[in-house]
């Protein structure tokens, strides 16, 4: 899978175990995915910053039919959309019993040659 130029910072950081999100230098607005311009103010001065890792589950599904062979060993696995405390939203793996609204912490796990995002329930 080739990496898009626009998302290079995020993808490379994830392989190092770091989670980045894009923020507007002008208005401070957090972006979802990777953008060329701020969705709040239109500024093109966007920067990648490290996220602390805390967030809240916005949506979650348990996948029973994997799209490709590499994921067959994980079935059934959960995918969650998580709102980071910084305001960005990310998709990642999660425990299958996680509920919407739960507090989570982001980390990474190894699948084959790549590292993927995984959210675990926040301790305490």
């Amino acid at each position, binding site marked *: 899978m080739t990496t898009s130029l626009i998302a290079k910072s995020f993808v490379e950081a994830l392989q190092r175990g770091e989670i980045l999100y894009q923020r507007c230098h002008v208005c401070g607005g957090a972006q979802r*995915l*990777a953008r060329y311009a701020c969705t709040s103010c239109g500024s093109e001065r966007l920067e990648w910053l490290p996220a602390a890792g805390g967030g809240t589950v916005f949506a979650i*599904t348990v996948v029973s039919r994997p799209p*490709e062979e590499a994921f067959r060993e994980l079935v059934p696995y959960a995918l969650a959309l998580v709102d980071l405390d910084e305001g960005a939203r990310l*998709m990642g793996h999660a425990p299958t019993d996680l509920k919407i609204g739960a507090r989570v912490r982001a980390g990474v796990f190894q699948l084959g040659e*790549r590292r993927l995002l995984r959210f675990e329930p926040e301790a305490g």
Partner: protein
Amino acid sequence: MAHAATQALGEAGLARAQIDGVLCGYATTLPHLMLATLFCERFALEPAYAHAMQMGGATGAGMLMLARELVRSGRCRNVLVVAGENRLSGQQRDNAIATLAQVGDPDFELPNGTMIPAYYALLASRYLHESGLDEADLAAFAVAMRANASRHPGAHLRTPITLDEVLSSKPIASPLKLLDCCPISDGAVAMVVSADAPAGARIAILGAGQAHRHQHLTAIADTRNFGARDATARAFAEAGISRDAIDYLAIYDSFTITLAILLEETGFAPFGGSARLLREGMFAPDGPQPLNTHGGLLSFGHSGVGGGMAHLAETWRQLAQRAGERQVSPRHTAFVHADGGVLSSHVSLILSREA
């Protein structure tokens, strides 16, 4: 496609030489650089205007909207709108799923092992959470679409199903089961938009609207306005009529959750209220606003762009009173809504029979 186009020309009473515009939907089984031109060559057409369009599931409604603009501007007199593909038999099923995976973001979503049902499942999980409804509420739409398809000889899935059968069907991506998802089908649909439609089949496009607020699931900013609300408002503003005038509905239904969300966001049910209205008979063939009387994508089938255009063909037939055994009591004004991607691109149309 050729078969559907021949039928459309026949119904419209037009000769090939009278077609001066051609809009053609993309096909995942035939990703050609110039599909409209290719089709014209093989179908022996020499139009003055032609190209293919790509708006995912909204392509059919988008082509009809553009055909209307081409006719209104005087650019064309008769525009043939056509789409079709052998999405089921023309390729390996895994290829179809892989092609459709492009709906996901290649850096943030796809690496996680996602596919389209998972995106809609995530939206469904949020919808059930916010509305307090359960999986049986969504399943009711699958049952209703199958009942409609059982009355259509050309439908892909015609055997009636029960609520329990939907709920106990194979899990795909919770809360969606196999029967919450549309099948992959073969099919083709063609229509003609003309400056002078023949008497007896004069179905006017009164209003049209689009909205495009995101491409990818993760980018969605507002789950109460995916874009359908904006597109609908634009279409009604142009038509100059209110929802009360609508007596037929054709709503995109790639999944049961798609139908619930779109019925509500287009304003034909309150938030969380579409399943209740369905159970009360509001959307039944003999109800006030019959919905997808051909069975929709969920049961008539999903052949790509043709799958979305089947809603348009059925709407035309019902308004023109040419729906045969499925004909509902005379209908005058229909609302059509289609979406492409993950509720990403939206097209609303208001069609009306001219007296």
